[in-house]
Each structure stands twice: as C-alpha cells, then as structure tokens.
C-alpha cells in the first residue's frame, strides 16, 4: 500500500510538472510580457534592459526551473492588470469558490445518492419516473441556462433569494466565510444548486444503474435468503457495493465543479476565482490565468489521490491480498 501511495505521488508530481510547463509556455508564447508591462514610448534599450532584468533572455530550461521554483514558494508574479501579487489575489477569492463548490458538491452527492437509491429500488414507481425525467432535464440544460432560470423564478418573480454576490461575509483569519450569516446562506443557495445540478443528475443516474446491477447479484439474493431486513440488504449490502464507481465519479466531478464554477460565478457575480479568471481573460492577464491553470491542476491531482486512497477504505480486496484462493 505504501508503494502504491509513493507511486501515485510520483505520478502526481509528473502531472503537475506538465501542467506547470503548459502554464509557463503561456507566458512566452501568448504575447510579449515586456510589451504588456511598459508603455508605448519606452525605448528599445529600456525594453532590452527590462528583458535582461526579468531574466527573459536566459535559456528556456533555466527560465522554467525558475518558474517552478517561484511557484513552489507561492510566488506567481504580479498581475498585469492590478499589479498586485497573483498569489494574494487568488488567496483572497479562493474561499468564495471553495465554499460554493463544497456546498454544490454536498448537495449533488446527498440528493444524487438518495434519488439514485430510490429510483434503483423502486424502478417503476411514478416518483422514480419523475426523478428520471428531472434528471434528464438536469443533464441536458447548460448551467448558465439553469442559473438564469433560477434567478428569474426565485430572485425576480418570487423575490425570495438574492441574484448576485455573497451576502454578508465574516472574516476569520485570511478566510472569508458566508456560512455564518443568514444572508450568506441565502446567497449560496441559487449558485450552489446551479453548479451542483448537473453533477447531481449524473450521480443519480450512476447510483441507479449501479444499484440495478448489484441488486441482481447472487450475494444480494443470498442476503435476502438469510432473512436480513430490507434496510440491511439495500443500504448495507447493496449500496456499499455501488460505492467504488460512485466515489470515482464524485471525486472527478468535485474537480470539475471547482473548475466549472467559472460559468456559475459569472452568472451570479460570485466573487470567486472563476470570476477573477474571466476578468483576467478580458485583460490577457497571463500571470493570473497561468496560476489559475496550475491551481486547478493541483486540485484535480489531489482529489484523484484521495479517490485512490478511498478505494482502499471501501474495498478489502484491494487492501488485503488473497489468503487461500485456488
């Protein structure tokens, strides 16, 4: 198991280096950073001096090594747009996105699991059919559409929930949270539902398919033949066996939720890193964009690592080798 973790860690480092390289390349081939930093009337000498000072004339491997070294120390350079350190800009906005993603993922997982188990157990009930129809809508509607519709209904027509922003936030250390105020929670609901809806329907359909598969197996029939209660059979024996694929998909989807928060944040003017990224794209703010890329890559890698470790927790066949098989 230790060997497995080490191997996966090694793979993660390789992946991160590749991501870092792509984001490093952005600096060099998407426009000239010196052009972006100086005014039009700067002389060629000054430009050359700046180029030398920034180390842009060094060979590429050295520049890449310097880039990785700086990134490891949390130094991602200055934003072209605001001249603030990129690291700080991201750190300020990360809590908003993480809170939104966390709530969206929890919503998707809990509601998705419940609906999946229900539709798997009672395939032909009218409620199952309703759920499956709804999930079809959830899968096919694009998030921005869902967001706009939700705003129309709950913010404009009913006026129950705010249509933009985070509401009141409380600052704890470097972390701003909306979890501690009523208006913070109210502001969270619409964006979280918008962001989590697609993942929720995906999880519903996955859990349902897995449940149907597992309920057909011999060990479920045998569990029933042992007279176990429905609850023990359905939620113990059956659900646990559906978890491995569900964990995989949920893990990958959590990464996707954080990455695709861009659209939801734009629709709801949510002050997170997704909105920051969109603003940076308008200004061709390369340091912010490349840092965002590295950070999303890192989140994906970490989540995948956790998912792999969760397999071991769920499935003893991976954890413990065979004892007396023939």
């Amino acid at each position, binding site marked *: 198991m230790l060997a497995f973790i080490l191997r996966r860690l090694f793979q993660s480092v390789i992946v991160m280096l590749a991501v870092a390289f792509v984001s490093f390349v952005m600096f060099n081939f998407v426009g000239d950073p010196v052009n972006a930093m100086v005014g039009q009337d700067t002389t060629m000498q000054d430009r050359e001096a700046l180029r030398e000072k920034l180390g842009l004339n060094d060979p590429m491997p050295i520049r890449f090594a310097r880039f990785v070294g700086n990134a490891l120390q949390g130094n991602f350079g200055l934003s072209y747009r605001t001249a603030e350190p990129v690291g700080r800009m991201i750190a300020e906005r990360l809590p908003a996105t993480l809170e939104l993603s966390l709530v969206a993922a929890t919503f998707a997982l809990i509601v998705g699991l419940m609906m999946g188990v229900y539709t798997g157990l009672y395939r032909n009930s009218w409620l199952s059919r309703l759920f499956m129809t709804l999930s079809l809508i959830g899968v096919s509607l694009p998030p921005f559409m869902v967001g706009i519709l939700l705003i129309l209904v709950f913010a404009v027509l009913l006026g129950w929930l705010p249509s933009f922003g985070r509401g009141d936030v409380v600052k704890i250390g470097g972390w701003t949270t909306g979890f501690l105020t009523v208006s913070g929670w109210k502001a969270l609901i619409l964006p979280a539902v918008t962001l989590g809806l697609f993942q929720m329907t995906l999880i519903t359909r996955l859990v349902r398919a897995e449940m149907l598969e597992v309920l057909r*197996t*011999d*060990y479920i*029939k*045998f*569990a*029933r*033949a*042992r*007279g*176990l*209660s*429905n609850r*023990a059979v359905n939620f113990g*024996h059956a659900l*646990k*066996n559906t978890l491995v694929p569900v964990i995989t998909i949920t893990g990958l989807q959590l990464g996707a939720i954080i990455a695709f928060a861009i659209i939801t944040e734009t629709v709801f003017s949510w002050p997170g890193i997704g909105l920051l990224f969109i603003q940076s794209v308008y200004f061709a703010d390369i340091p912010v964009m490349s840092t965002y890329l590295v950070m999303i890559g890192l989140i994906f890698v970490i989540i995948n690592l956790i998912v792999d470790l969760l397999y071991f927790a*769920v*499935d*003893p*066949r991976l954890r*413990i080798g*065979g*004892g*007396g*098989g*023939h």
Partner: protein
Amino acid sequence: MAEPVLEVKNLRVEFPTRRGTLVAVDDVSFSIAPGEVLGVVGESGAGKSMTGSAVIGLLTPPGRVAAGEIRLMGRRIDKLPYGEMRKIRGRQIGAIFQDPLTSLNPLYRIGDQLVETILTHLPMTKAEARARAIGLLKEVGIPGAEDRIDHYPHQFSGGMRQRVVIALALCCNPTLIIADEPTTALDVSIQAQIITLLKRLCAEHGCSVMLVTHDMGVIAETADRVAVMYAGRIAEIGPVRDVIKHAHHPYTRGLMGAIPTISEREGRLNQIDGAMPRLNAIPRGCAFNPRCPEVFDRCRVDRPDLMRAGGSLAACWKAEEAVNG
C-alpha cells in the same frame, strides 16, 4: 408418519412475458419429512431451481406462484407478506446457492455476515453471536476459525467459501435447508467433501434438506427420496433405491444410462436424444414424448399424471400398463 416439514401441493410458477405466460413449474406436489433429504434432479430449465426459489419466496420477478400451496410445518407460507416471510428465511429455511464465489458479499468480513444473520433472527448479544459464529465455522471444518472469522470472502478458496455458506445456512438452526446445486461450481475433489459435510451437519442438526442438483451421483449418495423433474413437472418421485434400481419413467432410465459405470467401460455412454422442449413449446400429451424410446399413441394425446408404479410414483402411461397389466 410425522407431519411433513415441507409440503408442496399443485405448485404452479408462471412467468408473464410479452409473448404470453410461460409455465416454469406445473402442478408439482411433494413433501419432505423431518430429517429427510429429498433430491430434486433434472436438466437445466426443468424447473427444479424455480421450485426451490418458490419455496423460500424469492422468485425473480416477474415470476410468481400462480396456483397451489406451500406449507412449512403445517403453516401456509406461499401467501405471506414480505415481512413475515423474511422472518422465516434464514430462521426456519436456510438456503445454499450454486456459486460460493458470488454468494458472499465481497465487502463484508465473513464474521460480520454470520453475526448479522444470527442477530437478525435470534435474541443474542453481539458477543454471543460471534461465539456462535466461531463455533459454526469450526463445525463446517474451517481451520483456525478464531482468526478466519475476520477474513474477507476473497481470502477463502471456493470450497472453503461453500463451507462458510453452509455455516450461514445453518446458523439459526433451520428446519429445512434448500441447497440449490451446492457443488456444481466446485472442483470434483471438493464436491464429495462438501456433500458429506452437508449430509452430516443436517443429520446432526436434525434438519431436512431439499437438494437440487443435476448430478444423479450426488443424489444416489445423499438423498432418501428423489424427484425427477422434466419440463416443469415431476416425472417420477420415490425412494432413491427404487428410482435408481427400478426406474419406471423412460426419462429416469435415460438419466441413469447417462452415468458411466466402470463395468461397462467399453460400451458407448448412453444418451437421451434431442433436447428438453422450451417452455413456450411444450408438446401436447406427455412432455417427454418426442424423445421417448417407448412412446405410443396415447402419449402424444393425453398427459399422464403421477401414478403408483412399484415403490414410487411415475408420470408415464407405460407405468400404468405395467401395474394394471
């Protein structure tokens, strides 16, 4: 004779399909006395497993008991609601399935599966249930039961897993065990061990067995009585000795002929020509008539019911002739 443990009368199992209703088990009646081992033998699709599933109330939907009745210790159980039937399964009727590799939940320790079954049915503490589980594992011959109880199914071989399954079937001292092809998925060398074990344990616990198999050898070795099924009906039923030595139904004789014996080493193995009819194409008259070597006109028109033939009952017009003539 004491009251039978299991009594099945005129059981009919149907499968509604889009192309009409299939009758998987048709007018099957038998009973099992206390401590008795009834073998149920037949080709695949003869309805023998289906009969077993009907008895424990676990027919795969849309299959259903369409007619007849099933009584356990005199109590009618085929119409019980799910919750009542659940209390009988595992408690009064234990089940053993064909494939031990897939009968156990791979994510649960075998001890957990045993303890959970015991606690479902018996008023015990967890510690008592665990002690009982260890005792059962010892009884079914699992070495080092104290340690092995915390192992997962994948850490056991096929034969060992079937022993665990037997322990699970026996864990609440049932009055009846339904063993559906308990040795089919095992190595030949293991099969005899498992059958011997099953027979010994059921004798010790005083429970009756309905042993479903297609292996005549296993039946001859184990059963007290045997029911031969063909196309959803019982072709012949009677004490093992009578059925094997003096089979009255041509199908039973065909099955016997298909077992190789050492004394006839040079001869060709007998086989029954043709295949069992599909459930949607069961011929008129006796279902066996297209394959029967002794067929005559009446067989193609009238369907024979079970009738007395020597020490057993056979569904064959020839048997009637033999008795009357």
